[in-house]
């Protein structure tokens, strides 16, 4: 409920760039042309084009000021559950800016792009090793795109073996919304499987839902409650016995690296979120990347092209790397080779850490989450309270503070200088607060966050208005979410004939 609108005017207001405009002010003066001016046809001239008029310094100051309103993982703790907002090492950026990478064109002859191809090949190999799968495509542009690709592969596999009756995808009620969306986009029907009281997939419901129309199951493990499904092998067995395939949503891979391989847990296909697990910018900071890994049985269906050795090397010559198309490929899902710059960053991250380092990343991510859980579980209700993996979900409500909602707690955390956790997801927890610290944070930061959360739990009883009015210490107060969702036109001005086009 958003009963509490903005408390007065925002404390800091930066006008829009249109409001800063002064007629006649310019940023750049062009020299007189040394050729005669051409008269443009009247039909091609617009009478009204109200671009703002500012000097270069005005523009720079405006945008630098706006940038200071941002909160980022470079400025503080960002426990946004499910998003794995780990720190992105700056060496990733150095690597992605190497001129040998930035000055390539994907249509160059492969003999001149061997460095990039070797990097992609090696990244495919590393992702295979991390997941246990037999083949990987780096093409998908983001996590949900990887899901769509994986589901299309599952569909192609069944159809190719002459089984076109499989139209139902099983999805737990704790799943990310992208899972049903990817299934629906692939023309499939979604069957929701309820969780049991320990937060695992309900096995009886799963058994009842499985039949000869089951294309497979999409499972995130650990799931969105941050819990490792205790029956994952049994789940795979049930789905496989019905002839279905297991899709692994790699959203929460940050808990498993070097500890468990998705293939060994019974999955047939998965996507990786390079932008989460392998430290590339996301959350408005850059494009994602969602490579897909599959078993040997599904390898022929991967999207084309993938990188492979096209000519074996010998004692004198290294092998020649090139692009190949799997035999029964579902086709291309992205222009050229996916988000190559993101691949360079993820490659750099994996190379920096090595196998032991990646295992430590996961161990610390899990340790940090369990530390927060242990320190907060007395003050906040944790409905599925058992040892968590890389994140956990608490309830943002108190029986003795009935007016307080998860949103109020989230907003109050901003006053204490922290990015709020994910709220109102997963849907199976009331007033959910989903907290994922990642391995990035040290104990001091975690303790400071705990202190803020405990203080807020006290304030919820003693000074609830502080929560309802939060945030007060940020450049802007509480924003009107209803207005933001309903009034979608953001322009300061609209062309006169807008709406006729």
């Amino acid at each position: 409920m958003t009963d509490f609108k903005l408390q007065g005017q925002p404390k800091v207001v930066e006008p829009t760039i249109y409001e800063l405009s002064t007629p006649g002010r310019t940023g750049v003066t062009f020299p007189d042309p040394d050729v005669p001016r051409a008269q443009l046809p009247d039909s091609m001239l617009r009478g009204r084009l109200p671009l703002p008029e500012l000097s270069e310094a005005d523009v720079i100051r405006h945008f630098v000021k706006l940038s200071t309103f941002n909160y980022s993982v470079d400025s503080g703790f960002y426990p946004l559950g499910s998003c794995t907002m780990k720190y992105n090492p700056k060496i990733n950026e150095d690597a992605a800016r190497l001129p040998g990478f930035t000055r390539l064109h994907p249509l160059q002859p492969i003999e001149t792009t061997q460095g990039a191809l070797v990097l992609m090949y090696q990244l495919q190999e590393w992702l295979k090793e991390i997941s246990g799968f037999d083949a990987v495509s780096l093409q998908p542009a983001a996590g949900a795109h990887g899901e769509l690709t994986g589901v299309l592969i599952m569909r192609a596999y069944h159809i190719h073996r002459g089984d076109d009756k499989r139209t139902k995808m099983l999805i737990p009620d704790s799943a990310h919304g992208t899972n049903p969306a990817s299934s629906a986009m692939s023309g499939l029907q979604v069957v929701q499987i309820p969780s049991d009281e320990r937060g695992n997939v309900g096995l009886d419901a799963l058994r009842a839902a499985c039949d000869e129309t089951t294309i497979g199951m999409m499972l995130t493990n650990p799931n969105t409650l941050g819990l490792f499904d205790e029956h994952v092998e049994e789940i795979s067995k049930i789905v496989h016995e019905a002839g279905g395939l297991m899709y692994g949503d790699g959203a929460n891979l940050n808990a498993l690296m070097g500890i468990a391989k998705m293939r060994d847990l019974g999955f047939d296909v998965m996507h990786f979120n390079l932008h989460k697990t392998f430290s590339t910018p996301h959350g408005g900071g850059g494009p994602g990347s969602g490579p897909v890994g599959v078993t040997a049985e599904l390898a022929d269906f991967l999207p084309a092209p993938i990188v492979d050795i096209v000519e074996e090397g010998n004692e004198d010559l290294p092998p020649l790397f090139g692009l190949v198309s799997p035999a029964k490929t579902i086709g291309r899902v992205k222009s050229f080779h996916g988000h190559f710059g993101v691949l360079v960053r993820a490659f750099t991250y994996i190379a920096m850490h090595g196998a032991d380092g990646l295992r430590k990343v996961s161990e610390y991510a899990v340790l940090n989450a369990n530390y927060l859980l242990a320190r907060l579980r007395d003050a906040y209700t944790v409905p599925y309270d058992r040892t968590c993996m890389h994140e956990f979900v608490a309830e943002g409500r108190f029986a003795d503070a009935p007016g307080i909602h998860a949103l109020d707690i989230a907003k109050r955390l901003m006053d204490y200088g922290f990015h709020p956790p994910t709220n109102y997801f997963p849907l199976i927890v009331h007033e959910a607060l989903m907290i994922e610290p990642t391995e990035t944070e040290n104990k001091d930061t975690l303790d400071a966050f705990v202190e803020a959360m405990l203080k807020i739990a006290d304030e919820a009883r003693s000074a609830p208005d502080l929560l309802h009015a939060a945030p007060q210490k940020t450049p802007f107060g509480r924003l009107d979410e209803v207005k933001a969702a309903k009034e979608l036109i953001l322009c300061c001005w609209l062309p006169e004939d807008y709406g006729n086009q």
Partner: protein
Amino acid sequence: MNIPSDLKYTKSDEWVNPSDGKMGLTDYAQGQLSDIVFVEVLVSVDDTISAGDAIASVESVKAAAEIYAPVGGKVIAVNEDLADAPETMNSDPFGAGWLVQVEISEEGDLMDAAAYEKYCEERE
């Protein structure tokens, strides 16, 4: 929480009025969703729907949800006003916030008000 005694209810939080065939989303459900900002009715007048069919899709500032028909029958009216004023489903869920009206020809699996109230309490 308001639970009118003359209506019947589903486990997925829809209500239906057995006397005139109007249906909508319950007060409990609108409270869980919080501010509803978008409604799309998925059926049209003269469609024949079955109990359990999706009749509308709603979006709030928190979540998106499908709404299912509590009973089956021929659609005789849909609430056209909701497209421009989806917040009516929050402010008057059992009145002006109704979604679809049908000529009931198929009973669904329904609860009376007392059973529904208990069902809501169990989920708190």
